[in-house]
């Protein structure tokens, strides 16, 4: 840069001021800009591009504000799950559990006692659970039980006596 003096630099600047790009240069400028930008981007690894885009997307959507919606939805789902479990439980959780356990035990074939101490062999009967598709407690029964327990009775007191005489006769 030392072989240019100030006069020469000034002359060059004056010359550049009058230079014009070719006639189609500005028509293709934006397209060329994007092409070069993509080329530059593709030099990065794919995961970094994805991360960068996700990052930009989140910031664009105001993530802190949006995060409350998934949290609320998750809370509602948890509540619904807890309520559904409670609704379909038996009224007496203890006895209901006992009954269910009893029913399950009754369905399991009991392995003969003598086999407990006997050495295991291929001929020993294997305890298997019968694949009965009948549920231990039908949903209908469960619903009836709970509705019956929760139903408020009709407290009776008529607004007029039922006693009635059509005419004055005897």
């Amino acid at each position, binding site marked *: 840069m030392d072989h240019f003096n100030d006069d020469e630099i000034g002359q060059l600047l004056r010359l550049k001021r009058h230079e014009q790009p070719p006639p189609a240069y500005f028509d293709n400028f934006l397209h060329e800009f994007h092409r070069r930008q993509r080329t530059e981007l593709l030099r990065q690894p794919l995961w970094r591009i994805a991360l960068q885009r996700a990052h930009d997307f989140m910031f664009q959507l105001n993530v802190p504000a949006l995060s409350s919606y998934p949290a609320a939805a998750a809370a509602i789902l948890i509540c619904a799950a807890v309520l559904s479990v409670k609704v379909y439980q038996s009224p007496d959780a203890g006895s209901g559990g006992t009954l269910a356990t009893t029913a399950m035990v009754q369905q399991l074939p009991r392995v003969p006692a003598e086999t407990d101490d006997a050495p295991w062999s291929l001929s020993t009967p294997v305890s298997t659970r019968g694949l009965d598709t009948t549920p231990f407690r039908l949903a209908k029964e469960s619903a009836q039980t709970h509705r019956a327990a929760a139903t408020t009775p*009709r407290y009776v007191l*008529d607004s007029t*006596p039922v*006693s*009635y*005489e*059509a005419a004055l006769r*005897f």
Partner: protein
Amino acid sequence: MRQPFGFKNDVASAPLLFPLSARVFLAAALLSGIPPLHAQEQSTSSISREVKEVFERSAKAVVKIRAVDQHGKLAGTGFFIDSAGTLYTAYSVGADAEDFTVELEGKEIPAHQVMTDRRSGIAILKVDLPTPALPIGKSSSLELTTPVLTVGFPLDLPKTPSFGMIAGFDRKFLGRYFSTTHLRVNLPTQRGEAGAPLLNFKGEVVGILVSSVDNGSACYALPIDAAEKIRSDFVRFGEVRHGWVGINVAPAATPMEGSRAQFTDIMPNTPAAESGAKPGDILLQVGITAVREPEDVLDASFFLTAGDPVPITVFRGDEKLTFTVEAGFHPATPRPRIASPLSPGQAMPLGLDRTP
């Protein structure tokens, strides 16, 4: 020293202004105002004590009744009338339902329907246990303003007393005749109290609560004499036998012998048709019931029992005539459904002394 407004001087002059006799009179007058106030407090306290005593004495025999009808579960009140577990309740509680239980001393005890009667508005249930019972009184001894109380189960609340007084003896309500006179009682009621006993201050049952009036500010009760007539029929015949003769009655233009009840129609094929009664006769008496107004025949009719002889006294021309007919079955009353006729060993004790 002159002390025109001195305290001592005022006191000293008092004997001059009010001599001893006047002061005694004044004191007596003042004291005479105290006894009425004191007596009023005593009277209120006495009523409260009596109500409490009756409630505590009667509460054990009053039970909550639960049942199931076509609309679902229902709850009402009932009360035991003997130690064998017989209990009265309202028709709307004990008639068109099943799976009856009563809550006695904290336990649910199954009950069964003994009989129901729509014409009177009552039902009788029974539990197979020895039970406390309420004594039966006389509703005929009630007067206007007689104090009464009831014990019932309003809504899902515990046993609750209500206090009021007899406000009327009504034969019709909202243009409809009752089958017999009902007691209108000024005591507040709530749903769930149908079938509750109406008690006098002796603790005796004088009525059965059957309905509310005007959104629960008052209520109607069937007189216990009417309920006992139904029970007496059931004990005698195993069914309720509402009787009738077959005569229509209307107001006469001119009262005769103190009665305004005039025969208008003698219905064919009824006991009255062959009795000799004629249209235009003035009715004076049916059985032991004197008749003054046409509405009096409601009670006269209610206490008739089919199959019983009924003396009827009328005024015709210038003479009184009495003829006797055998009452038939009341046509407007279907034969009541008898759920469980009592066997001879299960007969309900009965203490009736009213002769229909």
